[in-house]
C-alpha cells in the first residue's frame, strides 16, 4: 500500500486493519494518529477561541502543522516496522543486530522518536490552549494534551524496546525527554481545564 493511499483510508477501514492480526499498522501508527487527533483538537479549540484569545490563530496554525507532521508518521512507522520484521525473520533466531538488520532496526527507531517529539509539541500547545482558550473548550484542550502525552509515552516505549537502541542512545534520550515534556504539559492542561 503506498503512502497517500494509506492516509486516505476511512477511519473504519483503518481501525479494521489494526485488528486484522497483521503486524502493521501497529502501535507506532496508532500513536502517530493519536497525536494527529490531539493536534486537530487543539486547532479546533484555538479556532473557537478567536474572539477572546488574540494568539488563537497562531496556535491553530501551529496545531495544523503538527497534525500534518504527525499523520504521515503513521504510514512511515508501518513501513519501517514491516521492513524491520522482515529483516528479523530473515535473520532467524539471531536477534543480535548486524548489517541490514541493524539498519532496518535503526530506521524503525527513528520514526517513533519523531512521533514522540511531535507529541510533546502538541501537548505543549494543548496546555496553552487549555490555559488561554475559550472556557467552554478548555476541557477539549486538556483531553488533547492527555492524548498527545499518551502518544509520546507509547512512542518512547517503542524506542526503548527497539533492539538497535542501547541505554544512553541519543534517540532514547530525545524520546524520553519528549515523554516527560508531554506528561508535564498534560498535567498542566488538566489543572487548567477543570
Amino acid at each position, binding site marked *: 500500500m503506498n503512502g497517500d493511499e494509506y492516509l486516505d483510508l476511512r477511519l473504519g477501514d483503518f481501525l479494521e486493519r489494526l485488528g486484522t492480526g497483521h503486524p502493521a499498522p501497529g502501535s507506532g501508527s496508532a500513536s502517530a494518529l493519536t497525536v494527529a487527533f490531539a493536534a486537530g483538537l487543539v486547532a479546533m479549540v484555538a479556532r473557537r477561541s478567536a474572539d477572546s484569545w488574540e494568539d488563537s*490563530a*497562531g*496556535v491553530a496554525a501551529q496545531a495544523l*502543522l503538527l497534525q500534518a507532521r504527525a499523520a504521515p508518521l503513521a504510514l512511515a512507522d508501518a513501513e519501517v516496522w514491516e521492513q524491520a520484521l522482515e529483516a528479523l525473520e530473515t535473520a532467524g533466531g539471531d536477534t543480535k543486530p548486524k548489517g541490514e538488520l541493524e539498519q532496518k532496526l535503526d530506521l524503525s527507531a527513528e520514526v517513533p522518536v519523531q512521533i514522540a*517529539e511531535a507529541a510533546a*509539541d502538541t501537548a505543549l500547545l494543548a496546555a*496553552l490552549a487549555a490555559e488561554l482558550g475559550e472556557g467552554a473548550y478548555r476541557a477539549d484542550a486538556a483531553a488533547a494534551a492527555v492524548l498527545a502525552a499518551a502518544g509520546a509515552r507509547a512512542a518512547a516505549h517503542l524506542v526503548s524496546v527497539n533492539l538497535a537502541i542501547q541505554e544512553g542512545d541519543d534517540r532514547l534520550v530525545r524520546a524520553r525527554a*519528549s515523554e516527560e*515534556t508531554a506528561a508535564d504539559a498534560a498535567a498542566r492542561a488538566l489543572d487548567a481545564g477543570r
Partner: protein
Amino acid sequence: MRTVAVTLSDSELVQRCRASDPEAWNELVERFSRYVYAICSQGFRLSPADAEDVFQDVFTRVYTRLDTLRDDSALRPWIGQLTRRRCLDLIAAAGRVQPVEEVAPDGRETSVDELDEAFAVREALAQLSEPCQEMLDRFFARDESYRMISRDLDLPSGTIASRISRCLHQLREELEGKK
C-alpha cells in the same frame, strides 16, 4: 556601497526610479528578479534560456513603461502581470498552448497565484524582527521541534509556542497592511 535602503517601500522605489536614480533601478531589479524568474520557471516551466529572454524583456518594459504605472504601490502585481503575459506570448508563439486570454493550462495560473502569495509572505516576513523570522523559519520551514528551537535560541521551551503565535500575529498584520 548601496545608497538605496532595501526597506524602501515599492512606491518609494518607483518614485526614485522615476527620478532616474540608478541605484533605485538596481534595487528594483534585485528586488524582483527572483520573482520574475520564479514565475517563468516554476509558474510556466520555461527553459532557462526562455526564462532569460522573458526576464530581459520584462525589465526592459518596466524601464520604458514605468510612467504608465498608475498605482505606485502596485509595482509587484504589475511586474507579475507583465511577466505572465510575456511567458504566455512566448508559449503561444511556440505553438504550445492557446492564446493568452483562454489559457489556464494544467493549473499554471493557480501556481502563479501561489507564487504571488509566497512572495508576499516572504516580503512581510522580512519586515519582522530577526528573532521572529528565525523562529518562524525553524518551525514552519525547517520542521524543527519546540525543544530544538528552545535549545538553539536559548529560550525556555514552554514559551516557544506563544512566541511563534505572536510572530504569526505580526506577520498577519504586515500582510494585511500591504493589502
